[in-house]
Structure formats: C-alpha cells, structure tokens
C-alpha cells in the first residue's frame, strides 16, 4: 500500500517539529527516514502511524484519507525503539496479542491463532522460543519478536522506529540483512527511522534525509551519496571536507590559488567546495592545491591524511596505505569528484575522469 503525505506539519507547543512535508511512499518499497536527532524523523513516523495528530496536512493510505482514522483502525505494524514487548506475556502470547484483540466476529479460532504464531516464529527464525518471556531474550531476539507481533495482524504498512538502535554492531549487521530478506519475502511497504547513514544506505530502496523538520533530499542511496542536494546532506552522509572558495568568470579560486576543475563553473561569488576523502588524487603540481600533511592514521582499508591547504583550510583525504607519507610532507591535491554550493543554494558538481571532465548542474 502506498502512502501519500501532503503538507504535513506538526507543532509541539511553540516548537515546529515538521514543516509542511510532501512525500510519496511507494507500495512495497523499503524507505529510510534518515536524520540527526531532533530532525523530526520519529515524529513523522508517529504521525504516519496515527500515534501523533498532525497540526496540518493529510496522510493518504492508497486512496483512503487516513488523517482521521484512529491508530487502532489504521492497521499499521509499529516496531518501537525499545520493542515495547509485554513483559508479563510469553513470546507466543505477545505475538498473538493483536489477533486476540480483534472483535469476536473477526477473531480467528484458538487453533488458527496458534498456527499463525508458529508461522510467524518460523518467519523470524525463533521457532523454539515460544514459551520464553521477553526478559529471557537477547536484544536481537526481542527485536524479532516485536516484528513478528507487528506482522501478526497483517498490517497495511510496517513502521520501525530505530530498529537497530539498541543493538551491538555485529547483531545490527545480521539483523539488517535479515530485515531486508523479510521485506523482500513479505512485500510489506516498510518505513524505518534511523540516524545511522550506513544503515539507511545499505538497507533502504530510497532514503529521505530530514533536517530540522524539513526534507533535504529524497533519493536512492546512490543518489544521496553521489549527488547530495544540499551542504547539510553532504556533511551528514559520509565524510567530506568543506573548502571556502570564490568563483569568478567560471574559475574557482581557493585563497589566492586557482583550482582547475576542468570545466567552467557557472555563477559568481563566495561558495563552498565539498570533496569526499576518497575523491582526491595527488597532483603533479599543475593546477592542484598545495598542502601540508599534519597527521596520518589508518582508516579501514585506506590511510587517512589530515592536511592543511596553504590558505589554512583543513582537508581529509584517503590514500592507499602503500603510499608512504609522513607528517610535514608537501603534497599537491586535485579533486576527482566535487560539488560546489553557492550561498543561494544553487550547486554544481563534477567528476574528473581519466580522459576529461564532466559537470552536472543541480538545483
């Protein structure tokens, strides 16, 4: 079931948590709401589920206007950040809860409920834990039970609030794969909230980046990572160095040094150049930026260098660990992929290929 959101706003007293959002969630997709804390992502999820009333705007489930539908009639599955399992009930009773709450005329028989619980336990790969209590489960197991409980009522959409927030790194990784797998098998339209960019990029079909109650960008993980639509997204997703530049007559200058990006940059005035650490190459002194190495450290499979450009701006670059570099060395840098944001929000980006340069303009 697809969800359409139109002009959705939510205020908490004087504090506006969401400013008039428009968003289309496609049927069957796995969508991530990504943002720092306070960005409104959890509020948006709770408004969609009906746990919060929007101040303005409408939410459509398919063609149906769900804005006035109370939570218990919305038929949504919601997995809470700390799972909110009923601690006095066994795993099986937790999963069966939604079914036993149905009005008598719609309630399945005891045997049918039992069968459905077994089926769901099978789906979440915990078939032997039916008789346990939540306190006897690990964090990852609780998460699975919470999902099974939400799926038991056959929801129209599935919402997960920071589904892996409270788990350790290894369990997170496993559960990510597992959630993707469950999603692909069951086909539920799924929306999850996360502050972890890796999680969003790895797991989701599309990512919605939120900041201060506004949508900064909607796109596939590739689009979000490779073509961030705003300085905020560039900073928030992945690492990036921001370098203040001046643009004049299609030329970019940093301090007094001209930087050859291989293309004419349309626009004029002060701007900010964003480059990711892995999108630098060491230049031959021709049209590059002279810099001094201030620190080096191991960073995953690469060696990360902290450098100071001659103008005083700090940048980070990743190099292959084999390249010997010492603190104090002088290098010349040239960006291979970059994006320049002007102060009015306009941006232009480009990539320097082996054979030449190409540029894309956006927004």
């Amino acid at each position: 079931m697809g969800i359409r959101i139109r002009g959705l706003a939510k205020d908490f007293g004087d504090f506006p948590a969401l400013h008039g959002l428009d968003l289309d969630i496609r049927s069957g997709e796995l969508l991530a709401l990504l943002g720092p804390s306070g960005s409104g992502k959890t509020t948006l999820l709770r408004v969609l589920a009906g746990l919060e009333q929007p101040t303005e705007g409408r939410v459509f489930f398919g063609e149906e206007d769900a804005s006035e539908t109370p939570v218990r009639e919305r038929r949504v599955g919601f997995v809470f950040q700390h799972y909110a399992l009923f601690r006095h009930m066994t795993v099986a009773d937790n999963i069966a809860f939604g079914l036993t709450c149905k009005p008598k005329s719609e309630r399945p028989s005891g045997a049918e409920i039992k069968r459905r619980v077994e089926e769901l336990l099978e789906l979440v790969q915990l078939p032997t834990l039916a008789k346990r209590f939540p306190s006897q489960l690990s964090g990852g197991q609780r998460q699975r039970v919470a999902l099974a409980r939400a799926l038991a009522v056959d929801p129209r959409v599935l919402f997960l609030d920071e589904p892996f927030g409270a788990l350790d790194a290894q369990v997170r990784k496993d559960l990510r794969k597992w959630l993707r797998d469950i999603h692909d098998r069951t086909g539920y339209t799924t929306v999850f909230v996360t502050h972890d960019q890796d999680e969003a990029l790895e797991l989701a079909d599309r990512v919605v980046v939120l900041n201060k109650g506004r949508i900064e960008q909607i796109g596939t993980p590739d689009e979000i990572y490779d073509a961030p639509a705003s300085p905020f997204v560039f900073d928030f997703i992945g690492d990036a160095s921001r370098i203040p530049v001046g643009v004049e007559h299609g030329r970019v200058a940093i301090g007094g040094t001209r930087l050859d990006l291989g293309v004419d940059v349309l626009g004029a005035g002060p701007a900010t150049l964003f480059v990711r650490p892995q999108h630098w190459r060491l230049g031959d002194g021709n049209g590059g930026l002279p810099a001094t190495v201030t620190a080096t450290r191991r960073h995953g499979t690469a060696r990360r260098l902290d450098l100071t450009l001659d103008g005083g701006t700090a940048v980070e670059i990743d190099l292959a660990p084999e390249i010997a570099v010492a603190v104090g060395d002088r290098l010349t840098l040239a960006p291979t992929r970059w994006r320049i944001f002007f102060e009015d929000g306009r941006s232009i980006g480009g990539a320097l290929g082996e054979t030449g340069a190409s540029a894309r303009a956006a927004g």
Partner: protein
Amino acid sequence: MATDETFPLDPPRPRALPVPPPIGETAPARRILIGAAIGFLALVLALPLAGVFTEGLRKGLGAYLAAFADEDALAAIRLTLLVAAISVPANLVFGVAAAWAITRFSFPGKSALITLIDLPFSVSPVVSGLVFVLLFGANGLVGPWLAAHGLKVIFAVPGLVLATIFVTLPFVARELIPIMQAQGSADEEAALTLGADGWTIFRRVTLPNIKWGLLYGVLLCNARAMGEFGAVSVVSGHIRGLTNTMPLQVEILYNEYDFVGAFAMASVLALLALVTLVLKTILEWRYGDELARSARH
C-alpha cells in the same frame, strides 16, 4: 593419599588475606554504631510494641478474650472494617485514575493536581477532620441542606468514610506515578497499534505492569485507613457502638481505666500493622525483582 601428592588435581589455593573493606570503620566503631541503632529501635519500637501485648494479657487470656465479647468493641471492629472496605477501593480507583491522567496526558493544572494529591500528607489530620465539619456540620456549608434531605454526614458513618478517604488519598497514586512514569507509554501504544481498545489495554497491558506497585499502595492505604485517629476523631462524635472505630474505642477504654480492654483492642491494631509489614516485605522482595526485570527489559 600418595596419589594426591604425585598428581595434584588442583593446585592449593592461596588463602584469601583478611582485607579490610575499602569503605568502613574500625571494628569497635562499627559495633557502637550498630549497637546504637538496635538499642534505639528496641527502646522506641520493640519495647512499646511488646508492652501493648503484655498489658493486654496482664489479667490472663480469659480477660483478654472477654474484651472482644463486649458489644461496643465488636461494633468498633465492624465499623473499622466497613470504613476501610469503602475508602480503600475508592482510593484505589482514584489513585489509578490520577496516576494515569498525570503520567499519560499533559493538561492545564497538572502540576497543581500533583501537589494537591500530597495535601493530606502535609496537613494535620485534625485539620482535615475540621474541614469536613465545616462543610457538612450542622452549621456547615452543605450540612443543613443534606440534613433536610435526611442525610447525616458528621457524627455518622459517611463522615468517617469521607475523612478516611481524605487522609489516605495519596497512598495509591503516590505509589503508581513513579512506576508509570518510568515505564512510559510505549507498551500501551504498542497495544493500540495492534488494535486493542482502551479497556483491553488497561486490563491486559497496564494493570499487569503496575500490579505490584498497586498492591503495595493498597496495603499502605489500608493500614492507614484502619489506624487513622485524628481526622476520624473530629467527625466521629464518639457515639459508642455507632461511630467509634477501633482507634477511637482504644482511647475511650483507656480514658475509662479499662486497660485490658484498651490494650486488647490496641493489640489487634498492632497485629494488623505487623501483618501489613510482613506483606509489605514480601511484596518489596517480589516487586523489587519485578522492577529489576523491567529495568533490564
């Protein structure tokens, strides 16, 4: 045991040296502190408690039991039970409702309500009783109107019940508010998304989550309801066999130099307190476990 010497299965463990606890006093200081605490407790708690029972039994078990054969004594016990049986459930309902409202909703006057709930703890019980006399007495605000309609509140059972409800009002709510605050409303929200209606959520999710705290609050409420003297004394009028609860009966008997009767009745109240204490300890043990589990949850 030659084999043990040739093939020692376990190397001999080094003896733990007697290490003094990192925080602590010297042995004599500890003995003095513990002794002082126990001595003080014995003096002001254990001794008087024992005194109640010895005084009651001074003239033998026969006289002790005879004290309960008295019609007025029996009436006092019945009245105490009746007052508790009305006021405890009333405060149970109010306490749950107030705790629910305070922890789940934000509304104007919420902090005023929290403060008001504590009022009976901070106000002298005598003042509480006087307030009811002012309201419902023969010259009170609504007393004459009620009397005209045949309802007597002061110097009658309704007054006793009202005064007791007032005095014991905070117990249940005070017990539940921190528990419900700590638990948050995620469980209820989860039940809501699963399609449960309000009553189902309360019965199957909220109530099981708060049951130990609730029981604890009810127990304390009941102990106070049965033992309340001040407020009840003001509104009772001390009519023998009609408006005397057990604590009031104790006072009357004592003033009449019927020491056996007074202490016999007092011993029942003391026994009640002991039973409450034991139940409370059991609950604390159970409920501490429950709380620890919910914290891990």
